[in-house]
């Protein structure tokens, strides 16, 4: 029963502040006459109409999510692959590092106009914008993770004939996985931002497009519902990421705890 109680207590602790903030918003805007700040009750009441009944979930939310997914996965493939290559070779690292630092320093949104010239205004452009932003934290964290592989473990692997793909997976990737996952988490939040921004520039559907469209047509309540939905989406994706992290890095959290508590 104590587990149940602990879970209840944890979820209570986690939900208290959001609930309080929502309540505050609700109360403060309850009698709002401002055109730009409609009462929260109006906004929530509009969600059903704007998103669920209108078919916008499949017409706008789904394309946004697919672009995000495509861009993110592409960035993961690119970032992890290049990161392992660069992290494994000191020469390659010395060669690439200055360029990487420069490229990373460019805010990805400024690439949108450039990418539009090359890739048009379709999904390709948006996916590329997402990749161009997501890839850096993934790449750089992977490089760090691969560089930090324990020397003794490397020698152990050599002694026991661990080679090729087996070495890559069992030694390099697993060893760098805590840093890689950190990169994924940072990359995902950047990806969500870029998903919205790329849709604000030139698009005919998508969450970002819808929000801008509502704002331009002075559909302020509808615009607020979009912002709420976007926040909720980001939250859900972060939760999914956390779940993945818990599963993939179970060993790492255990190891750290064992080290902190002294070896048992």
């Amino acid at each position: 029963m104590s587990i149940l109680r602990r879970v209840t207590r944890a979820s209570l602790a986690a939900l208290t502040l959001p609930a309080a903030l929502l309540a505050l918003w609700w109360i403060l805007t309850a009698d709002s006459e401002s055109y730009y700040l409609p009462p929260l009750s109006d906004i929530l009441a509009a969600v059903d109409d704007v998103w669920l009944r209108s078919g916008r979930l499949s017409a706008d939310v789904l394309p946004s999510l697919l672009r995000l997914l495509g861009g993110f996965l592409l960035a993961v493939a690119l970032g992890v692959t290049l990161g392992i290559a660069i992290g494994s070779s000191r020469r390659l690292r010395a060669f690439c590092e200055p360029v990487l630092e420069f490229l990373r320093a460019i805010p990805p949104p400024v690439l949108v106009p450039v990418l539009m010239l090359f890739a048009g205004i379709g999904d390709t452009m948006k996916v590329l914008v997402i990749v161009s932003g997501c890839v850096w934290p993934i790449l750089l964290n992977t490089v760090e993770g691969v560089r930090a592989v324990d020397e003794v473990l490397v020698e152990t692997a050599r002694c026991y004939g661990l080679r090729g793909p087996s070495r890559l997976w069992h030694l390099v990737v697993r060893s760098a996985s805590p840093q890689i996952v950190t990169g994924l988490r940072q990359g995902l939040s950047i990806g969500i931002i870029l998903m919205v921004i790329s849709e604000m520039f030139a698009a005919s559907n998508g969450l970002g497009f819808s929000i801008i469209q509502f704002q331009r047509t002075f559909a302020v309540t509808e615009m607020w519902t979009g912002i709420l939905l976007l926040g909720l989406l980001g939250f859900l994706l972060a939760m999914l990421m956390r779940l993945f992290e818990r599963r993939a890095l179970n060993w790492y959290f255990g190891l750290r705890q064992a080290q902190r508590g002294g070896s048992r």
Partner: protein
Amino acid sequence: MTVMSETQTQSATRTEVLLDVRGMRKVYEGHGRSVEAVRDLTFAVARGDLVCVVGPSGAGKTTLLKCIAGLLAPTGGEVVLEGTAVDGPPPGMAVVFQEYGRSLFPWMTVRRNVELPLKQKKLPKARRSELVHQALEAVGLADVHTAYPWQLSGGMQQRVAIARAIAYEPHILLMDEPFAAVDAQTRADLEDLVRSLWHRLGVTTLFVTHDIDEAVYLGQRVLVLSSAPTVVLDDIAIDLPEERDQLTTRSSTRFAELRGQVFAQIQRAKQQRGAVEPA
């Protein structure tokens, strides 16, 4: 386990040289200066032997071991294992490192840690699982297959590393100060484990340590190394009875004599270094 059916007493197999270190020299080249870690090491290990290498700290023991393991290329001389010169980790060799906490894969369970090298050897699944079971059983860890290394004590982690080594069915087992980081009681247990495994499996073992008592207690032979630049000072046959016991063996007169002999050599090595250093 099925490794080598001969018993230790068969003298016919004793004489066959398994590992031959010939004139090994290692110089580390740094920025503008070079450090001669190992000057000239020559010795042979016969099949089935349990040889301990003891030397003062900084005697290039780890350098020697890494050169034998093929992890480091010697500057001069050569290491020959079963008639073949070593250039890279040879397939018939297993190594147990001092840093048990860093030589086991923390993302794998105990069983998977022991099994991984066997997978690499492309052994069929049934054989792998048989070897893993036997090895863990042999080191007294039959009940922790699904635990992670970091859930175990230091001594148990080193047992897992030993299990991994013997499951690999090596022709030679190298151990680099494997018990330097565990407490005294655990250390005594692990020493007896090494003796009993060697008896049962007959696997040729090269055991590197800085602990004179440990070297004399474990070995059939003790090689005494000088300080760096390292040479072999002495090669002492340990004529203690085969059955050794932490209590009776360590308190026997012969043990004290042998211990004294090794100790004197090491003291002499230190003094020599002291005399050379000001030059």
